[in-house]
């Protein structure tokens, strides 16, 4: 996949400083931040085989909404996110960003990856700073803003560390700062706290909620941890087991904000929601296990 042109038509030289929302975005009838319609993604494997990852996905996320996507391992949650980011072109269906069809990379989105995505040859500060370079921010200002963001994620004392000198949680904080400093209108997160230990996950979850609640962007959070999903989200979407995974349920989470990830889990309302969602998620998890992890790839290709 090659780097594509700016999708939202602000034709001009690359490195145009303004990333401001375009004026067409009328506040009266605001279209969904991300809308996936009839999405179908099929991978062409080596040897001519095909693997249909997801099919018939309809999902709409409004501005200011935090939606979690849960599902069994290998159900294509990340695939969905990659399609919304423009990293992957769907085989069929549409991806619409604020009412405009997406072509190429989604320039209005920030992406937080599950794996380490920091440049290992740059210090924490430079990793965050470099995110402003495509926007044409002058160096001195970029430096100031990057330091500010690192302080906001609690890494004031670690600006000069290289990624390998930081813990897993600290690296995620840097990645979070790197993503948020660009002030993207849509946030996409692919099991970002997956590799972290339980306590660190809670701390990171609270940090995320804290940062998100300041300006409430549209946020799609992919996870396999249902508790994490409920604690964070306004809505939880359940996906079926792959191959050809689809959305099987969509739950609202009417818990009040601000929330504390650790404490909200103890509340009665939380348990009720959890019970409801788990009822539909369990079926899919069991299906996935029955198929045998990894085996479904082969079977899917054969069918």
């Amino acid at each position, binding site marked *: 996949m090659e780097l594509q042109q700016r999708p939202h038509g602000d034709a001009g030289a690359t490195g145009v400083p303004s990333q401001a929302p375009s004026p067409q975005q009328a506040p009266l009838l605001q279209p969904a931040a991300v809308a996936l319609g009839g999405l179908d993604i099929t991978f062409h494997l080596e040897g001519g085989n095909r693997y249909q990852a997801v099919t018939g996905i309809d999902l709409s996320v409004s501005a200011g909404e935090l939606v979690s996507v849960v599902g069994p391992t290998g159900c294509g949650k990340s695939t969905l996110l990659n399609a919304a980011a423009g990293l992957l072109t769907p085989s069929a269906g549409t991806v619409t960003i604020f009412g405009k069809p997406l072509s190429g990379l989604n320039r209005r989105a920030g992406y937080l*990856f599950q794996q380490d995505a920091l440049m290992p040859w740059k210090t924490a500060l430079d990793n965050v700073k470099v995110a402003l370079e495509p926007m044409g921010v002058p160096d001195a200002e970029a430096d100031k803003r990057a330091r500010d963001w690192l302080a906001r994620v609690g890494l004031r004392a670690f600006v000069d560390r290289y990624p390998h000198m930081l813990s897993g949680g600290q690296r995620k904080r840097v990645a979070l700062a790197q993503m948020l400093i660009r002030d993207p209108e849509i946030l996409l997160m692919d099991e970002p706290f997956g590799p972290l230990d339980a306590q660190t996950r809670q701390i990171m979850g609270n940090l995320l909620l804290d940062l998100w609640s300041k300006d409430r962007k549209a946020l799609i959070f992919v996870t396999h941890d249902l508790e994490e999903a409920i604690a964070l989200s306004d809505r939880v979407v359940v996906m079926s087991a792959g191959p050809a995974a689809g959305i099987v349920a969509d739950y609202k989470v009417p818990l009040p904000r601000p929330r504390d990830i650790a404490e909200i889990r103890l509340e009665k309302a939380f348990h009720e929601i959890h019970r409801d969602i788990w009822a539909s998620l369990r079926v899919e998890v069991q299906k996935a296990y029955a198929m045998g992890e990894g085996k479904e790839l082969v079977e899917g290709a054969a069918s």
Partner: protein
Amino acid sequence: MNRVKLLVLQALVMVVALAIWHVVTTTSLFGDVKTTQFFFSTPIDVLARTWRQLTGTEIYWHLGITLTETVLAFVIGSAAGILFGFAFARNALLAAVFDPYIKAANALPRVVLAPIFALWFGLGIWSKVALGFTLVFFIVFFNVYQGVREVSPTVLANARMLGMNERQLFKHVYWPSALTWMFSSLHTSVGFALVGAVVGEYLGSSAGLGYKIHEAESVFDVTGVFSGMLILAIFVIAIDSFVTMVEKRLLVWRPGQSSTTT
């Protein structure tokens, strides 16, 4: 094992080896002393000759020539290796078309080219630079090629999502990654640049360390040969520790910082 003990043992190896050499060449245990000295010289003679050379001025002129050739071969070879490495890694067709030729050229023992280079570039430094170049180029080329191809897809996707254009991707992702791979082979490529220079001098020249050794050999001056080898060894160790220093500076961001060897 502690450091002192290790140093003592290392020194012991040298002392024992020199002692054996000394005994063999200065006593008549193994035949006529004059004959053994003709073939093997003596450690004291070699050390004395080396000392005399190192305190003189002539040897530094030769070292200067060899160093110039080494540096030129390294710089030009690296530059070409980086250029072609990038071009091939970013252009699959180019890489596919030239693949068999690159492999064939790399399989060729470069020493056989030395006489041709002498013919083309004369007996001055440029024929040695050319020989060193053919050695350095392939090492750097393969490493840069690998470095660009093996950029972590996540790091790349992330950089794209940050809105980087091709030029910025090059500057922040491909270039540092390729340099890492190149630096990890720094010892090898600098070493080969030196090999190219010395072998080239040895095969035909009028100056340089290789020339000095060859000159001593042609008059059966074994002391001169050994002394030349000793100076060469000191020279290589000096260059290698310089490279290690540079490497440590450049690769601070790398975990474990183990120095890479050939």
